[in-house]
């Protein structure tokens, strides 16, 4: 009985203890921190952290949320797999720490004038982890495998922009009809169905990764097991203890291995965020996947340096089923409910982690796009409430005859329940609405929402597959598989068609702005807030930046010996400067020779008659003419360039490159730079509050 008694006595002391336990965060494995002398951070000329600031043991411990469903890049779905696969493999393009598209396995590329032909020039020095060269053929094989019906990939829709991909997926034509050709060992050509301005961002999604053919042939479906997996990224899979840990070690054959500092990465699946944060506090983790939903204040007080919160490309909203009473044809009523939600209150009291109140669909920070705002976004809440009451009364409802409907939501490790509860009580308070809460199990909820028979108002939201507003706007297209709002507007649909074929970025943005404006007029949903990522990160871990897609490559990171604010962030800044700069240089060097090479190569196979002479000529132009280059240039900065309007996001990286090496930046700089838009399809719903299925429920 003793343990029990002990527990009881001790339980009383816990609040006291927790108040004085805040200094524990620095205790991390392999660190000398507490006793370490102050280390002066000096950065070498190439922008790398100098060796003596680095911890002796460069072993990174990352909480990865859940067990990855697979490490087969073509079957992968969900953020946990994606995080690991980004370390293991390298797509044609990659991302800088801020999320900008940079050369990956391809050192440069050309895009034809019509935006439909992409020609990639692969790094000649790229190697698989077993030493084999990475060739264009590997990519062709990978893409075909990914699209093949027999692979049954869950995420092959990433490939849909590629010519013939839909037909291949449907099994109507053989996989070799996919619009992907190896011109020679190091030149790969991809034909698209139509111009797809975000295509480069899709190319660091795992569905497009190459696979090592000989090991697939040898091991079949077991090729992704430790010991079998041959990968082309910065790390190799060393060990996988199911639901316990996944161990990666540095790939010495990686083309950039000399710049990879972290030697070993452990990924741990934590189904329970509070378990993860306890392990973080016990010094067993450097990086958590999230934080417990209700601990913001506590964490902010005790772990101010460790708690990192940054915008994430996703929106949370309530949906209306506009095909059912009482919301059919009743725009004013829909508006009334939207007005009556005090978003500042909801984000402050319910979500708590600095989520931004939202009045539109597309979250801020996606490229240069800025959403239209309804006029009431600028009103005070009192004004909104007055207008809401007026509209509510006009729609024929009153105290005696209140509006009644159901709010449907699912639960998990998220705030859905609290959010629905808060919304219902605000509506009741402001308008006298009688809303009933209906809580459903994840998959039941998904089904009901899709069938649109039972739903009236429901929890909804979207995280971006690729940071392009189109992914959000598309949801409200007539007949779209995720249009569970029943919204249908011919003008809106035709605008979407226009956007799909428009390839001049500014014009495309205008069209998207117009489409979103129409949507906000129709209001088949109630915008509530935009997501943030929130996690605990050891202050010793540097080399990473917050970015809107929440993609973080271990190869960019490094562990400092000890934490000293200024020095630490200087190192981070330096590192960011170094990354994008290097590839750009090499790009310029190679432009001319390879362009010629491509001209010849194109002629030779003659497969794609359309793609031969014309694009070759044009490519020459493209590399000389920066004006035309916006989309078709080799330097992959293209879309997410600076734009005053999206100020905080864009400003930083540009400045960063101009910084002299010794400048010490305040720590905020790095965390406030969601930066451009690191845009890769974000595979699933898992990471955030939106998630719905698959988590939680347990306690």
């Amino acid at each position, binding site marked *: *009985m003793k*343990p*029990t*008694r002990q*527990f009881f006595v*001790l339980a009383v002391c*816990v609040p006291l*203890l927790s108040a004085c*336990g805040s200094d*524990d965060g620095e*205790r991390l494995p392999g660190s000398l921190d507490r006793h370490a002398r102050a280390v002066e951070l000096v950065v070498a000329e190439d922008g790398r952290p100098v060796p003596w600031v680095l911890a002796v043991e460069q072993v990174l411990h990352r909480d990865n949320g859940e067990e990855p*469903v*697979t*490490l*087969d890049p073509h*079957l992968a779905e969900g953020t946990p797999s994606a995080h690991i696969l980004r370390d293991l493999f390298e797509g044609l393009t990659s991302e800088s720490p801020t999320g900008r598209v940079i050369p990956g396995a391809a050192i440069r590329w050309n895009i034809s004038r019509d935006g439909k032909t992409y020609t990639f020039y692969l790094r000649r020095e790229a190697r698989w982890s077993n030493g084999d060269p990475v060739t264009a053929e590997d990519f062709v094989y990978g893409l075909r495998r990914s699209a093949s*019906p027999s692979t*049954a*990939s*869950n995420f*092959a*829709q990433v490939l*849909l922009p590629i010519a013939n991909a*839909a037909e291949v*997926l*449907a*099994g109507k034509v053989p996989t070799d009809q996919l619009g992907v050709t190896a011109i020679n060992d190091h030149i790969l050509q991809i034909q698209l169905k139509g111009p797809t301005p975000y295509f480069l961002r899709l190319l660091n999604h795992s569905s497009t990764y190459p696979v090592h053919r000989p090991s697939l042939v040898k091991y079949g479906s077991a090729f*992704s*097991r430790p010991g079998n997996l041959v990968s082309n990224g910065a790390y190799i899979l060393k060990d996988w*203890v*199911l*639901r*316990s*840990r996944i161990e990666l070690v540095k790939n010495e054959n990686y083309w950039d291995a000399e710049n990879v500092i972290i030697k070993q990465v452990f990924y741990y699946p934590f*189904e*329970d965020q509070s*378990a993860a944060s*306890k*392990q973080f506090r*016990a*010094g*067993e983790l450097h990086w958590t996947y999230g934080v417990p939903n209700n601990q913001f204040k506590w964490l902010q007080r005790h772990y101010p340096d460790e708690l990192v919160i940054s915008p994430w490309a996703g929106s949370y909203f309530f949906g209306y089923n506009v095909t059912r009473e009482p919301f059919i044809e009743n725009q004013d009523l829909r508006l009334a409910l939207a007005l009556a939600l005090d978003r500042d209150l909801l984000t402050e009291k319910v979500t708590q982690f600095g989520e931004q109140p939202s009045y539109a669909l597309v979250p801020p920070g996606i490229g240069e796009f800025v959403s239209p705002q309804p006029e009431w976004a600028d009103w005070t809440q009192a004004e909104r409430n007055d207008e809401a009451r007026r509209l509510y009364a006009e729609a024929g409802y009153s105290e005696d005859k209140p509006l009644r409907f159901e709010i449907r939501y699912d639960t998990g490790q998220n705030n859905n329940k609290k959010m629905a509860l808060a919304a219902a009580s605000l509506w009741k308070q402001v308008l006298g609405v009688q809303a009933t809460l209906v809580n459903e199990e994840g*998959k*039941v909820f*998904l*089904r*009901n929402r899709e069938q649109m028979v039972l739903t009236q108002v429901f929890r909804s939201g979207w995280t971006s597959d690729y940071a392009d507003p189109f992914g959000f706007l598309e949801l409200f297209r007539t007949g*779209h*598989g*995720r249009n569970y709002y029943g919204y249908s507007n011919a003008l809106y649909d035709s605008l979407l068609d226009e956007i799909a074929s428009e390839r001049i970025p500014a014009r495309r943005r205008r069209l998207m702005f117009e489409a979103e404006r129409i949507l906000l007029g129709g209001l088949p949903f109630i915008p509530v807030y935009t997501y943030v990522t929130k996690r605990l990160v050891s202050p010793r871990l540097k080399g990473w930046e917050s970015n809107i897609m929440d993609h973080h490559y271990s190869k960019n990171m490094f562990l400092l010996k000890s934490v000293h604010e200024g020095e630490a962030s200087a190192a981070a800044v330096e590192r960011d400067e170094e990354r994008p700069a290097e590839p750009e240089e090499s790009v310029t060097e190679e432009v001319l020779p390879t362009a010629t090479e491509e001209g010849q190569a194109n002629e030779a196979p003659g497969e794609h008659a359309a793609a031969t002479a014309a694009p070759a000529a044009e490519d020459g132009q493209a590399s000389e003419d920066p004006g035309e280059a916006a989309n078709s240039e080799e330097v992959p900065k293209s879309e997410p360039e600076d734009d005053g309007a999206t100020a905080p996001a864009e400003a930083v990286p540009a400045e960063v490159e101009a910084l002299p090496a010794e400048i010490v930046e305040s720590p905020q700089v790095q965390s406030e730079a969601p930066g451009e838009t690191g845009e890769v399809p974000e*595979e*699933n*719903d898992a990471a955030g509050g939106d998630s*719905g*299925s*698959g*988590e939680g*429920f*347990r*306690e």
Partner: protein
Amino acid sequence: MTQDSGMLKHTLRRLLGLLPTLLMLITVTFFMMRMAPGGPFDSEKLLPAEIEANLNAKYHLDEPLLRQYFRYMGQIAVLDFGPSFQYKDWSVNELIAQSYPVSLTVGGLAMLLAFVLGTTLGIAAALRQNTRVDYSLMGIAMLGISVPNFVIAPILILLLAVYAGWLPAGGWDWGIASMVLPVVTLALPVTAYIARLTRGSMIEVLHSNFIRTARAKGLPESVVIRRHALKPAILPVISFMGPATAGLISGSVVIERIFSLPGLGSYFVTGALNRDYTLVMGVVIFYGVLIILLNFLVDLIYAWLNPKIRYDEKY
């Protein structure tokens, strides 16, 4: 000799009796899972029709339900639980084989601890019935039963791992240090329960005629307890332990989550939530077999402890 063969017959009969139960279990679970709304591939994201068709074909979900059922029965006849829908790199057999040793170790150690500690404390309390020792022991036991382990666990973690740093806050590496907290947490409520059970039945036994006789014969109290009272007093504990052991060693969802253990328990939940049909079937069958076998084992121990039970007479 007759008793031995009766016992053997009984054993065989019970083992055969397992089969219809199992068959029932499998069938009911199979159809219940399929009747649950939503499918394994439903998610927030849109799955193009072609892709869904490919997935359904790969997992034979496009076949009529009955044929799927018979296909599945054919598979498990050769002990193949099939591929997991959720953990695509692994078969259900591999998932169970990897996680089961963890659950078995934690649960087994917890049961052992609970049994030793619980019976000791229960007997101690019974022998000092209605004294301060008895009351305080039973008070604590009541607390142990009523305070759930998702309250105890975080407190232990905070104290022993986060603040003191003596033990890891979670995770599993087969080291003793990583076992201590989960085992203790898991064992506490069971210990308390066993202590109460033991105390109750011990008191009852101590008042029975044969103990009075034993004492009257002038046997020392320790012999009375050990030789005569213990066996009958422990019978209710044994019958409690059958299902309790099955519960403990099949993995506790709560404990696994809090301590991040790679055990079997979480699969029940994640499997069901994700509509991972094969995984749910696999763990349900596994758990079912375990419970049936353990109950069976309990019966055997019963017969050994209690001479009143004679199988050859009963059947």
